[in-house]
C-alpha cells in the first residue's frame, strides 16, 4: 500500500468520529430546545386549563315584590334600581342561618361573586314575570372559593395563612356534600371584558381590540407593502444608488427594536395628528410600520422567485410591463406574499412593547365596537393580569396565553396551508 492510502486510513476513524460528534451536537440541541418548549407549554396548559371552568353555586332566591321593592309591572328603570344585593344576601342567610358575627357575615357575602346581583338584575329585567317566584339559580362563586375548589388552597395549612378560614371550609364542605356546587365551562371568560374580580374577568375586550388592531394593520400594511415590493422589484431602476439606499433602509428597519416604533407613534400619530390614545387605530398604524419591512422583504423574495421566462413570454406576446406584473408575475408570487404577510401579522399580534407607549396598557371593561374605541390587546391583557395581586389571576394569565397561542398557531397553520396548496415549483 502506498503512503497516501496509509495516511487516509489512519485519519478515517477520526473523520467518522467528527461526523458522529457533529450529528450528536445537532440532535442534542434539538432535543434541548424541544424540552424547553414542552416544559413551557406544559406549565402554561397546567396552569391555564382550570381557568376554562368556573365554580357555580346553587342559590334559592326569593324574588318577592317586598324583598325587591318593585312590582312586576314596574318600568325598566325601576327594575334596574331594585335591591338585588339584598335578595342575594337573604338567600345566603337562609342557606346558612345563625351567622351573626360581623367577620363571618362578610365572609358569607363573599361566598358568591359580586356579579350575582347584576346577573339577577338582568334576568329580572328581561323577564319581570320572575317577580313573586322563588327560583333556584346558579351563581358564580367568588375567586377565593373557586380557587379552593380547584384544589389550590391547602387546607392542612395553619388557618391564619389560608385565605379560606375553618368556618368557611365547613360551609363549603356542606355545599359540596349536598351537590350545590358545580364546575361549569367558563362562558363569561369568552363573553366579557376585563374586570378587577378575577371570576368576572374575560378576554373578549382584548380579543376584539386585537381584532380591530389587526384589521387596521392588514388594510394598510398589505397594499402598501406589496406595492412597494412590486415597484422595487419590477419597476425601480437597477444599480441606482438611491434605490440601493432605500433597499438598505428597508432591511435595517426590519431590525429596529419595536419600542422605537412605539415612540414614533406617540410623537407622530398622537401628539402631531392628535389621534385618540389607546385606540386600535393608533395601535394598528404603529404595527403597520413594524410589519411593513417584513411584508416588503417577503414579497420581494416571492416576486424574485418567479422565473424570468414567464415575464419574457408575456413581453413576447406584447404585454406591457404593468400587464406582465399584474396578470402573470403577481398571481404566481401571491402564495409567497400571503405567507409572508400572515407571518408578519402573527408577529404583530404578539407585539407588546410599542403599544405600551401609545396607551394601550389600559383597563378596558367595555367591548370595543370600532377602531376609535379604547381597547387593550391580548398580549397587554396577559401583562396586566400577570401583574395583579389576586391569586386567581395566575390561571387567567395562562389561559390568556393559551388563547393567544391558539391564534398564533392558527395563523401559522394558514400560512403553511397556503404554501402547500398554491406554491408552484419550477
Amino acid at each position, binding site marked *: 500500500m502506498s503512503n497516501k492510502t496509509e495516511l487516509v486510513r489512519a485519519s478515517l476513524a477520526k473523520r467518522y468520529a467528527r461526523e458522529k460528534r457533529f450529528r450528536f451536537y445537532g440532535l442534542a440541541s434539538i432535543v434541548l430546545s424541544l424540552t424547553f418548549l414542552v416544559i413551557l407549554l406544559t406549565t402554561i396548559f397546567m396552569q391555564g386549563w382550570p381557568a376554562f371552568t368556573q365554580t357555580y353555586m346553587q342559590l334559592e332566591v326569593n324574588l318577592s315584590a317586598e324583598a325587591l321593592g318593585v312590582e312586576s309591572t314596574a318600568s325598566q328603570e325601576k327594575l334596574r334600581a331594585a335591591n338585588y344585593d339584598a335578595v342575594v344576601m337573604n338567600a345566603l342567610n337562609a342557606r346558612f342561618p345563625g351567622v351573626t358575627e360581623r367577620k363571618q357575615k362578610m365572609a358569607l357575602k363573599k361566598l358568591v361573586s359580586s356579579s350575582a346581583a347584576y346577573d339577577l338584575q338582568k334576568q329580572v329585567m328581561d323577564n319581570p314575570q320572575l317577580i313573586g317566584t322563588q327560583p333556584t339559580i346558579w351563581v358564580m362563586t367568588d375567586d377565593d372559593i373557586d380557587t379552593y375548589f380547584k384544589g389550590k388552597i391547602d387546607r392542612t395549612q395553619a388557618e391564619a395563612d389560608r385565605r379560606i378560614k375553618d368556618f368557611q371550609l365547613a360551609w363549603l364542605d356542606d355545599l359540596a356534600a349536598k351537590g350545590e356546587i358545580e364546575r361549569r365551562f367558563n362562558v363569561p371568560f369568552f363573553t366579557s371584558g376585563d374586570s*378587577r374580580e378575577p371570576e368576572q374577568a374575560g378576554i373578549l375586550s382584548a380579543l376584539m381590540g386585537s381584532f380591530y388592531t389587526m384589521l387596521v394593520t392588514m*388594510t394598510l400594511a398589505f397594499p402598501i407593502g406589496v406595492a412597494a415590493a412590486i415597484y422595487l422589484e419590477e419597476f425601480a431602476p437597477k444599480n441606482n444608488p438611491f434605490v440601493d439606499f432605500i433597499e438598505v433602509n428597508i432591511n435595517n428597519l426590519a431590525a429596529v427594536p419595536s419600542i422605537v416604533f412605539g415612540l414614533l407613534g406617540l410623537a407622530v400619530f398622537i401628539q402631531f395628528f392628535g389621534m385618540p390614545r389607546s*385606540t386600535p387605530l393608533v395601535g394598528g398604524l404603529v404595527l403597520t410600520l413594524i410589519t411593513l419591512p417584513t411584508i416588503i422583504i417577503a414579497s420581494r423574495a416571492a416576486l424574485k422567485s418567479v422565473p424570468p421566462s414567464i415575464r419574457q413570454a408575456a413581453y413576447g406576446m406584447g404585454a406591457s410591463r404593468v400587464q406582465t406584473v399584474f396578470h402573470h408575475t403577481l398571481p404566481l408570487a401571491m402564495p409567497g406574499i400571503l405567507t409572508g404577510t400572515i407571518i408578519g401579522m402573527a408577529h404583530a399580534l404578539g407585539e407588546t412593547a410599542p403599544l405600551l407607549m401609545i*396607551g394601550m396598557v389600559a383597563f378596558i371593561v367595555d367591548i370595543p365596537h370600532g377602531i376609535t374605541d379604547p381597547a387593550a390587546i391580548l398580549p397587554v391583557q396577559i401583562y396586566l393580569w400577570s401583574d395583579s395581586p389576586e391569586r386567581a389571576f395566575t390561571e387567567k394569565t395562562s389561559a390568556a396565553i393559551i388563547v393567544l397561542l391558539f391564534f398564533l398557531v392558527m395563523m401559522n397553520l394558514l400560512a403553511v396551508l397556503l404554501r402547500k396548496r398554491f406554491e408552484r415549483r419550477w
Partner: protein
Amino acid sequence: MKKLSMAIAAGLLVATSAAQARDNISIVGSSTVYPFTTTVAENYAKKTGNPAPKVESTGTGGGMKLFCEGTAVESADMTGASRRIKESELADCKKNGVSPVEIKIGYDGIAVANAKAADAYNFTRRDLFLALAKEIPDVASSELKLVPNPYKTWKEINPALPDAPIEVLGPPPTSGTRDAFVELVMHEGCKSFPAIKKLEKEDGDQFKKICNSMREDGKYIEAGENDNLIVQKLQANPKAVGIFGFSFLDQNADKVKGSAIEGVEISFENIAAGKYSVSRPMYVYVKKEHVGTVKGIEDFVTELTSDAAWGDTGYLAEKGMIPMPEAERQSFGEAAKGLKVLESL
C-alpha cells in the same frame, strides 16, 4: 397611493370627531393606584350604566405629565398618584391651565418580606439603610466620611438580626414603590446619623446623593416591576428578602411573611392606625375643567368617595387599600364634592 392617503385622512377625521364627543372617562397614573381606580371604574359603570372609564397604568410621573398636558378634551381627566403632586408638576399644570382637585383615597403599605419557611426579621429603618445604601458614613470617624458599604450579613449590622447574607429583591428606580421606599425607609435611616441629618438642611443635593443611592454590588437586586415575580423568587430563595406592596403580601400570606419594622408587625390594623411606618398615601387628581365636558366625572367622584368604596369595609379595603380614618375621609370627601382646586402645596 392617493387612495391610501385619502383613507388615512378619513381615518384621522373619524378619530378627531370621536374625540370631540367623549363619554368615557380617561384615567392615567400610578400602577399602585391602578388596582383601586379600576375597581371603582368597574363599579361606577355597573351602577350608572355609563361606559366604563379607561384606566391606563402609566406610573405616577408619566400620569402627571399626561394630566397636566392641557385642557383639550382628549387629555386625561384624572390621574392616580402614589405620592403627592410635586411643586414642579403643579406649576406645570397651572401653566397649561389645568386646575387639579386633590383627593386622597387611602394608604398603601410597603412590605419587607421573606419566605414563610425562613427566620422572621425585625428591622429598624437604620438597619435597612445600612444594608442597602451604596455608601455609608464611617462610624469610627467623628466627621462625615463615607465608605463603600462593607456589610455582607445582617448580623454585622445589628447583632440581633440573624447571621444570614444580605440579599434584597426590590423594585427598579422607575417604580413608585421604589420612590416611596427610598423616602420612607432610606431617608429615615439616613437621618439616624446626626451628621447627615444636619446635611439635609444645609446641602439637600448631597443629602439626596447619600440617601438615595442603593447598592450596586449585587446585594440589592432590582427584580422588576412585577411584584408577583418577587413573591415567587422569595419562595424559591428563603435567604432573600423582598420589597413589595401590601396587597401582594395579603394575597400570598401562605407563601411569604412580612418583617416587623421597629417592632411593629405589618398588618391591616397597624397600617390603618398609623403605627407601621412604611406606608404611603395614594391620591387621585381630577381635572376640574373637564367636569361637565366629559360625562360622568362627578358620578365617578361620588362613587370613589362613597363609603361602599373607600370606607372601612368598602370594596377598596377588600382589594388591599388601607382606608383613611373617618375624619380624614370626611374632609377629603367634602373637598372632592365641592371640587376644591389645589392652589398650592
